[in-house]
């Protein structure tokens, strides 16, 4: 049992069937993965809403933020995808070496800056299928 620190985490993107690390990421999160349910409550059901497993699950979204440098090829490669929206593979290697992979059906990309700050970009990757978790 261990508390795995975020320092040393590497996030990679597919370039020519190779997984290449993305620079200057400062945070990441995965959310929205859940198993599907069907509301099977009928008029003559009891008080409690009845849910039935649909047999499917949604992979959710993987999001990360980075210090945006438009001159960096790795950042350009992310924004390039807006003009070439196809499914791509990504990877996440945690400190200690545990690897998680997933496919994203597209990309959301935006950047921002403010007085006294530095430019950052937010990337959203809608996961198709499920993350390949360590089991």
């Amino acid at each position, binding site marked *: 049992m*261990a*508390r*795995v*620190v975020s*320092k*040393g*985490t*590497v996030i*990679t993107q*597919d*370039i*020519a*069937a*190779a*997984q*290449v*690390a*993305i*620079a200057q990421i400062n945070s990441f999160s995965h959310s929205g993965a859940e198993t599907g349910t069907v509301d099977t409550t009928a008029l003559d059901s009891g008080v409690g809403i009845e849910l039935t497993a649909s047999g499917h699950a949604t992979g959710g979204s993987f999001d990360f933020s980075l210090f945006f440098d438009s001159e960096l*090829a*790795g950042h*350009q*490669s992310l924004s*390039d995808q807006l003009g070439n929206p196809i499914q791509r*593979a990504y*990877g996440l*290697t*945690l*400190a*200690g*070496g*545990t*690897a998680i*992979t997933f496919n994203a059906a597209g990309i959301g990309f935006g950047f921002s800056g403010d007085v006294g700050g530095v430019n950052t970009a937010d990337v959203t990757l809608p996961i198709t299928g499920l993350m*390949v978790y360590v089991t």
Partner: protein
Amino acid sequence: MRARLLIDQPITPGTVDERIVVGEDGKSYWPAGAVLEDPRAQRLVQMGVAEPADAECTLAANMTSEQMAAAQRKQEMLAKGIVEDDYQRYFDGEMMGYDADGNDIPGPNWIDRDAPESDLILPEGFNE
């Protein structure tokens, strides 16, 4: 467009190619020297994992040899998750990366900086 890998590079899952090798960590890699053909191959060069393998890639990458060398140094550490403060220690072989607790994975030239001074092995002729 073609680029030649300079370092072993993890494959994208699902890739099938007879050149792929399995590393000591059980993961699959493109071996250094493999030439990858792709419309985006210049990105491999710009991100520091490959060198151009044809004129089209050289033109598309649009980098000097110095810029390529700098990108290669940066990518090596990026792929291992090394933070900037530790770049020099990584280059010096003191550490190779971090374990799950964030502690250094010792390299061949590891120096235990927490060791009592009396335990340090000083170079011959070292003058306090």
